[in-house]
């Protein structure tokens, strides 16, 4: 059954979109990630205009992070104070990102920027995760336990606006969390991702937030930043297609259930290894498209900023 998407202005198979939502939901349920980094490139491969793919991608992420954040909040795994600072930074980042997106679309460089951002972030995060998971698998085979480094004083402790974060058991400056939040908000706007894959490692390794609190707090941030991003993308870029989003959400919710069940039967480091491989594959695919000689060097687009 074909359905005409009102904002993307194209006719697509509804079952295909449900299936896509399901597959991304399955993987995100299995690995515990938002899945935006898979969804947005897949939508672009399908022919959805990149701006609409990025703008619409924020809605399924918002939906899945709402249910995730509620579950985490019930388990008291959300550091609200830390979350609020991350959100404040995130909103600023999102504002900058949406504006930049508008300028890049006018200049005709938005697609390139999105591709380069994906290659950079997915490449870096994927490589780090792969190395880490291989290390863990090796260690677990040789029977060693990995001891985390004890807290050490770094340049971060010299920053002003120190605050006490009770749930995270931290006494640190508010500046690094705000900067991390801003960076993730910026990524959310220009890449159509939740940014969990950057925020979680940053909170663990830079801020030393306890692992138990990290997921819930980052989901808390993603909920609010995604809500703001969805709103701004509608307002500034008119790039949110609710029909497309609804199909992806319905597929995603069901997929996430199956994914979570599948993930529960696997070991953490195996999951991380597979996720890393997946992230690197997406990265290579996008990179490949940038490098090979295109079959068509010309492209058409409507004129922006003038009734288009």
């Amino acid at each position, binding site marked *: 059954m*074909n*359905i*005409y998407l*009102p*904002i993307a*202005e*194209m*006719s697509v198979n509804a079952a295909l979109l449900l299936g896509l939502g399901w597959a991304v939901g399955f993987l995100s349920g299995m690995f515990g990630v938002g899945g935006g980094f898979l969804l947005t490139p897949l939508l672009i491969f399908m022919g959805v205009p990149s701006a609409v793919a990025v703008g619409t991608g924020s*809605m*399924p992420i*918002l*939906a*899945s*992070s*709402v*249910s995730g954040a*509620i*579950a985490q909040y*019930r*388990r008291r795994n959300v550091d609200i104070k830390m979350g609020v600072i991350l959100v404040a930074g995130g909103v600023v980042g999102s504002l900058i990102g949406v504006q930049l997106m508008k300028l890049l679309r006018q200049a*005709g*460089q938005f697609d*390139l920027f999105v591709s*380069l951002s994906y290659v950079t972030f997915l490449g870096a995060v994927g490589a780090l995760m792969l190395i880490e998971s291989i290390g863990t698998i090796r260690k677990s085979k040789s029977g060693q336990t990995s001891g985390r480094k004890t807290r050490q004083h770094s340049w971060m402790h010299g920053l002003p606006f120190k605050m006490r974060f009770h749930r995270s058991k931290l006494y640190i400056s508010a500046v690094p969390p705000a900067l991390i939040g801003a960076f993730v908000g910026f990524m959310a706007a220009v890449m159509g991702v939740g940014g969990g894959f950057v925020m979680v490692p940053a909170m663990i390794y830079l801020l030393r937030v306890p692992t138990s609190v990290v997921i819930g707090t980052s989901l808390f941030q993603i909920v609010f930043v*995604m*809500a703001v991003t*969805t*709103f*701004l*993308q*509608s*307002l500034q870029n*008119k790039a*949110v297609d*609710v*029909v497309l*989003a*609804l199909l992806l*959400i*319905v597929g995603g*919710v069901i997929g*996430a*259930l199956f994914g979570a069940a599948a993930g529960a039967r696997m070991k953490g480091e195996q999951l991380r290894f597979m996720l890393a491989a997946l992230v690197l594959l997406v990265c290579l695919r996008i990179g490949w498209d*940038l*490098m*090979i*000689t*295109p079959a*068509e*060097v*010309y*492209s*058409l*687009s*409507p*004129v922006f900023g*003038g009734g*288009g």
Partner: protein
Amino acid sequence: MLRALISLAIVVLAMPVLAQDTRPSRMGPPRPAAAPAPAVPSPTVEADVSTRTLAVTTGFTGHEIVVFGAIDNSDAPSTGTGYYDVVVVVEGTPFPIVVRRKSDVGGVWVNTSSVTFGSVPSYYAIASTRPIEEIAGPGVLERHAIGMQHIKMTPSARYKGTLKEYELAGFREAVIRLKKKENLYVLEPKDGVTFVGRSLFRATIPLPANVPVGPLVARTYLFHGGEVVSAHIARVTLHRAGIERVVHNFAFIYPASYGLFAVLLAVAAGLLASVYFYRQPG
């Protein structure tokens, strides 16, 4: 119109034998358009479109329109085709468009140059009784914007002098090539217009699902001896309808409310999912 009538008059006068051959029973009442040609009523073409208004709804997957018409006061000697030629051009609303060209910058393909064309038809389909090159010379086709290479595309003034003519031609060809690929520029096969009997004809024009919404103009030309003898214009309106219209208008006219709605929708979906599916205690 005047030019058509003059050329028609020449054609009629040059062929008195054929003109006399016209049977009076087929002439019908004289038409006002035929007034300047006093001797014989001139052949005129009249046409209409099967669907005058088309609704683009959520279920829109494209539509086929039929342009049909008749030649009045035909002076064709027999039912055989070849005496008259009919060309049907269906054109969408012109829009400004940016064409970008990529080139290799340090191993990565980047958009490096662009040309803005002030108005390019969003859709262009052509159907004819014979290949158009056989029907008329390039001058005539150019004048009536018949044929893809004759689509009127003028680059914005700021490109004057900065780009060479062959470079501009490359951009122009790219528009046609890319639009053809999207099924937005269509050249119907050589028997795109078929005659039903002596003076009735029909042409089927496919509108793809991605046809830009807006009014379409169907121009029908009657050719004889390489010149346009008569022409007729019919219109098709393509408008959004149903949910598709509601959503699109909502998003573009009230973007702030639409944004809020999108946020609430996603949050509601998330809440619903957590209530129904994630109720198991964690």
